[in-house]
């Protein structure tokens, strides 16, 4: 069975790169443009793992992760944070919000796929 990945990122460039990378790696990919849309889509698509950006309009990554963790159905879903922030402070905030792991941009396709494999069965 194909694993389903929900990606949340406001940048069209990154969205497309994620789509190509994940599809090539054999994942089913669903995309949202910001946290609000991410939460909306979440219910319908029932993903196995979420990859999200931090800096986004309307609802940022921290808020999005908190929203997912508040959702009784998805509070144990693995969430990977995809962001250029490599400093500890942001990583920590993401962790506090409930992120499972992180990938530092610019992401390398292999590393992205590895990270997803790591947090999913």
């Amino acid at each position, binding site marked *: 069975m194909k694993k389903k990945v929900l990606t949340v990122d406001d940048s*069209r460039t990154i969205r497309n790169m994620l789509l190509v990378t994940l599809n090539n790696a054999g994942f089913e990919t669903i995309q949202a443009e910001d946290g609000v849309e991410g939460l909306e889509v979440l219910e319908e698509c029932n993903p196995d793992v979420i990859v999200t950006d931090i*800096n986004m309009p309307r609802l940022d990554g921290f808020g999005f992760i908190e929203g997912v963790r508040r959702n009784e159905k998805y509070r144990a879903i693995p969430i990977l944070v995809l962001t250029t922030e490599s400093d500890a402070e942001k990583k920590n905030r993401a962790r506090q919000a409930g992120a499972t792991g992180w*990938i530092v941009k610019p992401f390398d396709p292999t590393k992205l796929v*590895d990270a997803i494999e790591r*947090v999913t069965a």
Partner: protein
Amino acid sequence: MDMNEIREIFFQECEEQLAELETGLLKLNDGDRDPETVNAVFRAVHSIKGGAGAFALDDLVAFAHVFETTLDCVRSGKLEPSQDVLKVMLKSADVLADLTNAARDGGTVDESRSRALVKELEALANGEQPAAHAAPEPVAAKPAVAAAPAPTDSSGFQPIPFSFDDFGGEEEEVLMVAPTYTVTFKPRAELFSKGNEAALLLRDLSRIGEMSIHCHTGDVPTLDRMDPEGSYLSWTISIKTEKGEEGIRSVFEFAEWDCELDIKLAEEAEADDERPMIPVPFDLSLLEDEPAIGDEPHVGMHVEPVVAAAVAAAETATGVMQAAAAASARAEKKEAPAASAAAQANAANAANAAGQTIRVDLDRVDRLINLVGELVINQAMLSQSVIENDNNGTSSINMGLEELQQLTREIQDSVMAIRAQPVKPVFQRMARTVREIADITGKSVRLITEGENTEVDKTVIDKLAEPLTHMIRNAVDHGLEMPEKRIAAGKNPEGTVRLTAKHRSGRIVIELTDDGAGINREKVRQKAIDNDLITADANLSDEEIDNLIFHAGFSTADKVSDLSGRGVGMDVVKRSIQALGGRISIQSKPGQGSTFSMSLPLTLAVLDGMVVTVAGQTLVVPLTAIVETLQPEAAAIHSFGATQRLISIRNSFCPLVDVGRILNFRAQQANPVEGVALLVESEGGGQRALMVDAIQGQRQVVIKSLEANYMHVPGIAAATILGDGRVALILDVDAVVGASRGQSLRQEMSLAS
């Protein structure tokens, strides 16, 4: 989709982000302190940096990073976005745009400029906080994520040879003496609540070396005392790996905070470990095929009993947690529907606000516009033939036709609206122009733009940028005074240039106002006399003097400056505005400044024209060129030289141009008294009276390019199809007037593009 396409998308996105960035910065400059504005600005730079990183555009990434760091200081409130700070930021936005362009099209960027800005940005970031913290780290810094183990195939676990930098070159040796580590791992409850999974971590660990595992179940309480979300299991793993402690830690990278992790080299571990450890062969490869542990409680069935115990124990934690989740879900259900309904409503609103847009190839829109043009013509032809053939005037047909006419007009308007775009991008470019000139001239200038969302056809927008840039340069360079002079005149040392756009009676009016010294009429007059444009004793009104600056080759700057010089004067501006079917006028008050107003058609696809007859041919004269029409009287016509004639209009003489003669429609000059004179204003501001035989009427016509369908015809700008199906040529007024001066008809800028 391949990388090239994504790259293309990236650059499109960059343009959008750059526009967003500039808008935001200008808002901040105007005192907007909305955190969302700062966030939007930050995000724009952040997005560019993120995308640029993916394409290894190192220069762009490096600059964006420094910019971002400084913006982050503003965002976090460490740096007050004062005017001075914003000045640096706006310049940085310009450089960022340059770097983006350079990354896309090749070419280079003024390195000294970007380097100087990097220093300024760093200084700003450092100004308010300890240097160590703000010092921009090299952006391309190796991500903190250590190389994760490569995925194995589904056939099962296999150790993957992997070299770490530290071990570079020594791999062989290391492989032979792979040390054994003892890892104790005790997850805390938080580990599970963040979506991490003990079984998966153990699986990953098994991939970096040969290991045996022992699960400690001693802490598991009896069921009645068990917290379903608690964590009671811990593991001791003995692993033989060449990856070292670092490699082991990297497996637990995501989980390190939420567990107790202890890694020791086996020798030490054995020394202080008194508890006998039973090595358990551990093979988690079976997990590979299972989508989710929690959903598959029978997973243990296929595994050796001992392993099953370990895995099942890990599962218990997950399973129990999910059971608890379900329980708490029920409790929360009451509030949930209300909350989710509200969330949905919000989301829907937000989605509407964000605007539903699609991207369409311009060619497709053009094709549609062409077709609609055909439709309009066809409808007109149909009406005409119905009227001609149906003398009784059956009212139902006429009514149907009228409705058809209305519909086609509406379709035409709607289609034109598709191409309409706000002038915003052009106005934004002007902001940059102003900054650059202000910098070079040492003047302090504030650009205020209004009506940026006024829409006009894309072709008009594209052609607007050049004349506008030139006018802005003029306004700052010639219009505004130096700060000292302004202070002396009791004005704000900072000059203001105001750029506004608005719709007025089916046209777009763009005004450029400066609060400078106004036109120096004495100087202009003197210059015009020096250049033989007027005689020394000419009696000119203020307005006429002002309009002299539109004359070819006129420049009041004593020395041709670096900026507004460049060999083009206001005459070129006027000509390009006219080529767009527009008019330009000027109002100036000494000491208070000048206003240039341009009135442009909303589209270049249709034209308001006067349909005239010349030697049996039907021609269309663009209405914008015509000042007035008159019926010449014999007494007003004067011969001049061999063939030239003049017409006297209100005590001034104006050369008479026989259009039929110029276009070679007839061999002899027509008798002016039998025709109509169209007074036109031409390139250079001079007036000419164009002689035509008769005026048929005014009408909006759809412009059809002659060049695209046939070839360029001197004196003709384009063609159109009239209601009766006949082709009518649209007159190129400037070319005809030029020809009357003895110049031969030459290639001129045509109306249709």
